[in-house]
């Protein structure tokens, strides 16, 4: 069934003289190019781009698409990534004329519908987080982290305090320390307790007048709620620092607990995870941040404000906060994804959102209960929206690694869970089923894992066996990187 010819590289499909897109003839008076632009600026020859015709292009990319696993086609329990169903209505609504074709410098008076949507989204995100001030600008979760840390830096500078350190547990996402380093902070990593939670004693011993912030994911990356979060928050505030909540795991607590209520001062959302902006094979995402009142003036601009009843002014306008750290991105933000998040929140309402988290947590606990006798879960009797199992014992006894299980699952028609993260669990298998999966799917997934563990290790080391390609040679890829096609290397 595979069309191997169509999935050859574009460059080998190219034939001189083929055309797809063709422009209409020029309708303004022609003059010589060199009258417009002097020769020194002009290219000597045409670019090397390939030449295909339109059916070629369609067949190539449609066939390529069939080589992917995706949420639309497969169960995708990739821990930490919240790969839930992406409602199709969002695609149509975000592509409406009047939304998809608005230029970022469109005058506010011609953009009231858009600003209405974005204002209402700000309000909803403030209510869900319990933190009143929102910036929709960050393009992704990692940029949200960086933005919030720059906000914290500006706040402390304003107060005349020199706070240079950012703390985080070793179970943190890699983006936490990377963002802190780019924001100019020194990174301090803490260990966990044997329960997989923040070590309060160690945290206390590391807090001082140089502490700017503690970055904590809650529920954490082990799928556990940090039950001492109120104490942690008090400790930070006593030391004059701020608490940053990495919102990657918001899918567990929508309408149940709010970062602002349990002690967070700032947080980011991942609209593409929690509120179903599709992941786009890597991006785009959107990473709005929510902060407390006293940080609101430092947010990047623009933000949308609603005018209070003055009939002469527009209902919605763009404003820069008074002490804004400045921009972190050009234009307003990843609006296309924000629109999808808005549509999702308007579809669900308060009750629907709570049901999301209830069923995400139910599904995760059900799958954990079905699997924990096969794949032990070192931390927690129950989990929130995801759990982290360990293949360490199975590896010792049968020589089957987390990677073997992940790869073999592909043959069963399941995307692999996240493996080898978080780093604190050896042979980690991190499973996040999400709420948009059925009991039948979870049962089939659990059965598949049990079956895999009974298979021969040698057979598993060579898995997957039914995918378009088998395990790639990563070592060769890294040793001699081939990062583009070239005519000479293609034989």
């Amino acid at each position, binding site marked *: 069934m595979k069309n191997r010819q169509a999935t050859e590289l574009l460059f080998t499909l190219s034939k001189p003289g083929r055309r797809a897109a063709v422009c209409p003839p020029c309708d303004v008076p022609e003059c010589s190019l060199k009258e417009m632009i002097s020769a020194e600026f002009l290219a000597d020859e045409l670019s090397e781009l390939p030449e295909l015709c339109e059916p070629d292009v369609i067949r190539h990319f449609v066939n390529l698409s069939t080589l992917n696993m995706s949420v639309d086609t497969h169960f995708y329990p990739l821990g930490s990534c919240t790969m839930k169903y992406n409602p199709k209505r969002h695609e149509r609504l975000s592509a409406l004329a009047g939304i998809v074709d608005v230029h970022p410098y469109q005058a506010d008076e011609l953009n009231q519908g858009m600003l209405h949507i974005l204002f209402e989204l700000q309000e909803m995100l403030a209510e869900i987080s319990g933190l009143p001030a929102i910036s929709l600008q960050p*393009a992704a979760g990692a940029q949200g982290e960086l933005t919030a840390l720059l906000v914290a830096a500006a706040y402390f500078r304003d107060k005349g305090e020199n706070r240079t350190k950012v703390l985080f547990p070793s179970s943190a996402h890699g983006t936490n320390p990377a963002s802190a380093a*780019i924001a100019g902070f020194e990174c301090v990593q803490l260990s966990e307790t044997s329960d997989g939670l923040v070590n309060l004693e160690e945290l206390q011993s590391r807090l001082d007048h140089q502490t700017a912030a503690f970055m904590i994911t809650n529920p954490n990356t082990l799928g556990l709620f940090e039950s001492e979060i109120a104490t942690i928050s008090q400790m930070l505030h006593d030391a004059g620092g701020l608490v940053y909540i990495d919102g990657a795991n918001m899918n567990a607590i929508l309408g149940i607990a709010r970062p602002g209520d349990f002690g967070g001062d700032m947080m980011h959302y991942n609209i593409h995870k929690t509120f179903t902006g599709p992941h786009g094979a890597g*991006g785009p995402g959107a990473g709005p941040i929510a902060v407390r009142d006293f940080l609101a003036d430092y947010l990047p601009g623009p933000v949308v404000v609603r005018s209070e009843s003055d009939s002469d002014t527009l209902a919605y306008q763009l404003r820069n906060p008074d002490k804004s750290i400045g921009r972190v991105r050009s234009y307003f933000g990843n609006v296309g994804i924000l629109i999808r998040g808005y549509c999702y929140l308007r579809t669900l309402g308060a009750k629907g959102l709570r049901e999301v988290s209830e069923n995400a947590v139910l599904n995760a606990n059900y799958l954990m209960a079905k699997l924990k006798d096969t794949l032990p879960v070192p931390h927690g009797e129950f989990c929130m929206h995801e759990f982290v199992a360990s293949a360490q014992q199975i590896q010792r006894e049968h020589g089957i690694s987390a990677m073997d299980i992940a790869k073999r699952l592909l043959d069963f028609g399941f995307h692999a869970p996240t493996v080898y993260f978080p780093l604190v669990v050896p042979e980690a298998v991190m499973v996040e089923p999400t709420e948009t999966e059925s009991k039948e799917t979870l049962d089939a997934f659990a059965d598949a894992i049990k079956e895999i563990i009974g298979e021969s290790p040698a057979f598993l080391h060579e898995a997957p066996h039914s995918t378009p390609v088998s395990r790639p040679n990563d070592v060769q890829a890294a040793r001699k990187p081939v990062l583009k096609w070239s005519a000479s290397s293609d034989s």
Partner: protein
Amino acid sequence: MAYLFNTPDQQTEMLQTIGVDSIDALFQQIPSSNQLNRDLQLPGALTEMELEAHMRQLAASNGGGLNRICMLGGGVYDHFVPAVVDEIASRGEFYTAYTPYQAEASQGSLQAFFEYQTLICQLTGMDVSNASLYEGGTSVSEAAFMAMRITKRHGKVVILGSVHPEYRQIIATYVDNVYCTVVVIPTPQGTADPADVEAAVDDQTACVIFQHPNFFGCLEQVGQLSEIAHRNGAMSIVSFDPISLGLLQRPADYGADIAVAEGQSLGIPMQFGGPFLGILACRQKYVRQMPGRLVGETVDRNGKRCFVLNLQAREQHIRREKATSNICTNQGLLALRATVYLTLLGKHGLREVSELCCRKAHYAADRLSAIDGISLAFERPFFKEFVLQCRDGAETVIKKARQNGFDVGPALRQFGDLGGVAANEAFLVAVTENRTKEEIDRLVDAVSISSDSD
């Protein structure tokens, strides 16, 4: 309507397997004092039909785009997007997948990104492209950080005042909490005087950053700027317009070390500012200092060609605080759009689009600047965008155009410091292949008549 499968009976069955008697019991790990214990106060839930009506009403109230003619510029442009781009990008297999960690189940995206990287190299003449960043503005900052790491000069960056003011603001924000001076070279004539750049660059400078065509649409002395950077051991970073490369010299031709761009014009709708595409390409020797995802070719265990995420040891999930960037993903779906767009155009199509933009922009500039009270702000050569200076004020002309269904701008006044450019009475006009002579003539009539009767 939370897109749920579980029936009440199944929920009960699942709870029995777990060994608890209610869903609430699963939330007992959250201390009750940390729980909300009330309903969120959100607008009521809408069915699909209600939501559609609501969104259509908001979209219709949003004058922008509906039967209006867009000649707005400033880094985002109303280029034509062929239907094939939307068709491919709306394949669920592409847009509902995630970062291709499992290469065996992601060859579609991985090959498309490998093709993207190749197309960007063909377009720019550079040796290597990453699989994309957020957008054009942050790409400039990432390139500057990359230059600091490569030159080991962390204290000074030189940037032209003619670089997009928002891109300059992003750099200023990013380096605000680290010791780094951003020196801005004034460009009061629309482009930089290379002598001013020469005077500002020293042996502590990491890079010289310029935009070409620049924010005002003008062409810079790019060869000289690169030479000045290199003579001082600094890197040459250009922010380019991909469409312009159908006509103009490629970044590699004039000595750029890192070439970055806003890729919106490659088949991506304007959608009030994003999501867009950050392009970053460089010379081969700098590859290990690149930020962002890179896709490489290798073979599988049967010797068959395949594609993988490559050189991940640069990235945050491995290197954490020592990573080359905190960026976690590429803009996969937008990179796919650009890949399809460039493939559809091919070498001849890109040339046609580029030439049409250039010719129509020059026609529009000639006609608009012939109107009494309106003149071209700069005498420099330009590509598809230019600045008009208006005797009676930029806002007056912009409003007259707007009343007649034309959106022009942005007015330069809103950007604050613009490298010494007299911004008060000036605004941008951009002309793409989407505009017709008839539209341009109508704009000229509308603005002329309005000016006379004012």
